[in-house]
């Protein structure tokens, strides 16, 4: 219980400080505060999809249905954070570049992640037999993942990037953030990760309850 309270307080502090300290990027100005929320969301999205794929591989190896449940839960949470990151990024794009969507490489790749996992959920909805659903969706998510390197190679060649990279790292990979910005950013990143794992464990508990209820009904 204590860690939930400390999470509450810490998250509150991050929100307050993210709006009261000077904006992290001078050129972009106030809009650059989205950086404290947008990047942690994108990070959780990648983390959750990675976890989903690892659980899928483990399912194909040991054929335990819990692994597939975990893969689906991680993918679902990743999808939520993916939508959040897309929406916040899109609003930021409107403010700084003047349009909500302009097929910047990052926008394209996050859009394709949404498509892949949208297709993944469509597939899960279309298969009734549980073991078959688990096997098919595991194969699909692994197969989809091996196309991602091609995207990373292709998309920057087709559309130039407008993404503000210099607000995070410079060419020689040094952080240019000031100490205050860095503290807030990394706290936000860490707290988002804690929230994600909390949500994941809640989803797991719901699954366990559902499964035991199904057993009782049988």
């Amino acid at each position: 219980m204590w860690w939930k309270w400390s999470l509450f307080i810490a998250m509150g502090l991050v929100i307050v400080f993210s709006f009261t300290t000077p904006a992290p990027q001078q050129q972009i100005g106030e809009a650059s505060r989205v950086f404290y929320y947008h990047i942690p969301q994108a990070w959780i999205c990648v983390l959750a999809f990675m976890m989903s794929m690892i659980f899928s591989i483990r399912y194909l190896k040991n054929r335990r249905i819990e692994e597939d449940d975990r893969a689906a839960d991680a993918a679902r949470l990743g999808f939520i954070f993916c939508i959040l990151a897309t929406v916040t990024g899109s609003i930021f794009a409107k403010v700084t570049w003047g349009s909500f969507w302009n097929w910047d490489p990052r926008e394209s790749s996050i859009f394709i992640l949404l498509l892949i996992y949208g297709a993944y959920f469509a597939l899960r909805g279309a298969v009734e037999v549980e073991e078959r659903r688990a096997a098919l969706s595991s194969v699909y998510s692994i197969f989809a993942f091996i196309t991602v390197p091609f995207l990373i190679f292709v998309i920057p060649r087709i559309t130039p990037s407008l993404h503000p990279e210099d607000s995070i790292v410079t060419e020689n990979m040094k952080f240019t953030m000031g100490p205050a910005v860095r503290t807030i950013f990394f706290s936000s990143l860490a707290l988002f990760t804690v929230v994600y794992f909390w949500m994941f464990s809640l989803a797991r508990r719901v699954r366990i309850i559902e499964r035991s209820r199904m057993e009782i009904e049988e």
Partner: protein
Amino acid sequence: MPQNSFGLISKAAAVYAKDLRLELRTKYALNAILMFGITTLTVVSFSVGQSGLPPKLLSSLFWIVMFFSAMSGLAQVFVREEESGTALALKLTTDPDAIYWGKLGFNLTLLTIMTVIIAPIFFIFTDAPTDNLVLFALVLFLGMIGLCGATTIVAAIIARASVKGALFAVLSFPLLLPLLLVLVKATEKVLLGVSFSSVATELQFLVAFAVVMIVGSVMLFKFVWLD
């Protein structure tokens, strides 16, 4: 698992021959693909006219037609097995690798026939420049291999699902997007009449994509087929 490569090849050839014979009896998949392709090409030609469109537009229209035509028939190769209830017999008589190669070969044949018929009609209808036909054919052929390599396993996946119709295109599209983007780019360059060396990067990409997709499919196919 196959005992030797010769056994694998002859088994795959048997699966291929069986599918080809079945297809020639009904011509279901072939008709679906060709009619879809011709219909969409006609719509494109009527709506944009024969006025010389810029290559960028031509190549995107061409690949949209090709993609959706392919989507209308490529799943048939596995859906047919499930619908006629012959999947189990096939599972018992031969190993998954041979089935995958046989089906991949069959899909590749279907798409080759489609290309041979659709591409000339495309040139006739849209009055696209024809100075670079050899390079165009090469890009097309590599694109077809990549398309089949990525979608044959998806066909196997959706054949096992209860809703089959739109799912094939939905599942295939995200996988094919990098391929389609490169194909549109390469075709645009070819229509502009460039030399071989300036599309070399795209050709390398097409080969790499096809190889990775086929290797990945071979590794994952048995999990789909034998669940």
